[in-house]
């Protein structure tokens, strides 16, 4: 029996699958990074959508935006995203009243399908209790959820927000390591969404993750110019070149055969060399 990296998971974007030489390696955590508006959430929903199309279970952990907003945003793309399940950990307005413990939070958070995402009595009541959301509590929530349903794809949108919410919780580095380890042990292929990393800082998720897909957005000659790079992919060859990316009303598409224009490449070089 030869262990292999042959079992690949399609991202749902053919051009990116080509750049990854087939897709992501099953059961490993990956980072999707980029500035705001670079298309991270769309890419992630496309990844989950690909899963449900193949009959898999897919879970979106929504931290940045409330689920009903995500639903409205992706509905514009005309996808049937109803089968994607969503874990609503969007923090509510703080009530500063009675706090509940982390474990109780895990018992309270509700998972719904993206189709009926909307304010529910249960979530509202629970939010009134204003529990703390943190890396730790998310792991416990996921543990409960994965215990009931066998998911194969999970997206965390976004770890950047989750870390900000966890600031008071002590050893966040170890908690992130633990969360990603938990997802691996559960056999889940996960996408962890983060902001563009600060080039002078080393964030733990960046060196724990088994790969990083980075989305770039810049103004070139009065129009937005998008491209995607594979910054890292453990255990597999991959396309080292930036490739042009397009966001249309059918989602993200990437042309893995085309080179990006010289001017854009030069900006990208400057960009990666001097920081942002």
């Amino acid at each position, binding site marked *: 029996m030869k262990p292999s990296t042959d079992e690949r998971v399609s991202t749902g974007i053919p051009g990116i699958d080509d750049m990854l030489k087939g897709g992501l390696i099953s*059961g490993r955590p990956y980072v999707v990074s980029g500035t705001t508006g670079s298309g991270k959430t769309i890419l992630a929903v496309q990844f989950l959508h690909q899963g449900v199309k193949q009959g898999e279970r897919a879970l979106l952990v929504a931290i940045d935006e409330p689920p009903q907003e995500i639903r409205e945003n992706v509905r514009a793309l005309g996808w049937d995203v109803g089968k994607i399940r969503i874990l609503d950990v969007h923090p509510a307005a703080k009530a500063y009243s009675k706090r509940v413990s*982390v474990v109780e939070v895990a018992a309270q958070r509700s998972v719904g399908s993206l189709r009926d995402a909307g304010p529910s009595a249960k979530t509202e009541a629970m939010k009134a209790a204003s529990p703390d959301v943190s890396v730790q509590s998310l792991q416990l929530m996921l543990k409960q959820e994965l215990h009931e349903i066998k998911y194969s794809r999970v997206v965390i949108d976004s770890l950047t927000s989750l870390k900000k919410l966890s600031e008071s919780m002590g050893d966040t580095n170890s908690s992130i390591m*633990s969360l990603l380890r938990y997802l691996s042990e559960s056999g889940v292929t996960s996408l962890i969404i983060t902001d563009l990393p600060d080039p*002078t800082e080393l964030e733990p998720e*960046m060196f724990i993750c088994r790969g990083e897909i980075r989305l770039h957005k810049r103004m070139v000659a009065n129009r937005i110019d998008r491209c995607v790079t594979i910054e890292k992919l453990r255990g597999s*060859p991959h396309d080292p070149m930036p490739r042009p990316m397009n966001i249309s009303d059918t989602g993200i598409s990437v042309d893995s055969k085309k080179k990006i224009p010289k001017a854009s490449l030069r900006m990208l070089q400057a960009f990666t060399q001097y920081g942002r």
Partner: protein
Amino acid sequence: MIKDKVKTGVPGLDDMLEGGLIPGRAYVVSGTSGTGKTSLAMQFLLEGARSGERVVYVSIDEPPNEVKQNMGTFGWDIGRIQVFDATPDVMNYDKTPVRDVSTERKVVYFSDIGPEIRQTSDRNPVDMTISTLQEILKQEMRARKYSRIVVDSLTSLRYFYIKTSEENTTLMSFFRLLSDLGVTALLTVQLPEISKPDVEVHVARGDIRLHKWFDGRGLMRGITVEKYRGSSHDNRLRTMKISSVGIDVKTQSPEKREEVSEEEEQPVEGSTDLPDPPPPSDEAPAPPAEPMPVQPNDQSPPAELPPKPVEQHKEGGGI
């Protein structure tokens, strides 16, 4: 002079190191993500295993099953490399006492590693700390004489096992332990894209740094020896390739660019697009942070690399 140097097993790198590494000392392999640190470290262990030495890989970043799968792409026979799984368990955030790791995990051969990730025990996760890791290494070394050890990565060791307040002293003592054990060690260090010198590089006896950057033709890879105590070494940036059989360093590059000063190198085509470079750090900055000359699209030889600001580290012979 030190006669019996330890070969790294990376063609070209041994030339840069004037024969290899000085036995019994700890060295750092540093670089940003995806520069080939783990591959280089594994090649170093493989070289030892091939000549019948006992070698051990301490895995902290990635579970050993994944490391084994990843290295499978090179077609290397890593079965005789021993491995210690020092990856942390999933935490359960309970206050229940955790069991000591030394009763739970042992050093095994890579050939014993299966395709699946080790599952955190249902009962309780085991507690791993820097002191238990040091204890395990000491016991192992006493029982069996290892000649080479890789810790992948020292960065994870710092982030997950060392308290910030005790960081420097703990790291010093870890390096001290390695030299007391008399083992030649390679410790991988992950660098952010713009880095300043950090404590591990000061404490290590040497620093092999891996680089990658874009030029007009695509992704380029390079390697420098930033520091090497007690030995002369190659001061220049050499090109490096990661192929299907491993890492290969090209040391035969023409000398002609040597004379070109940095000022003449600066006003390259398109340089007006570039923002100001970052302030220079204390030590030699990593080449990717320097302005790269924009390459013409023809097949120019790799000698077109910018001359690296030379860090004179010719300490000559031993102490």
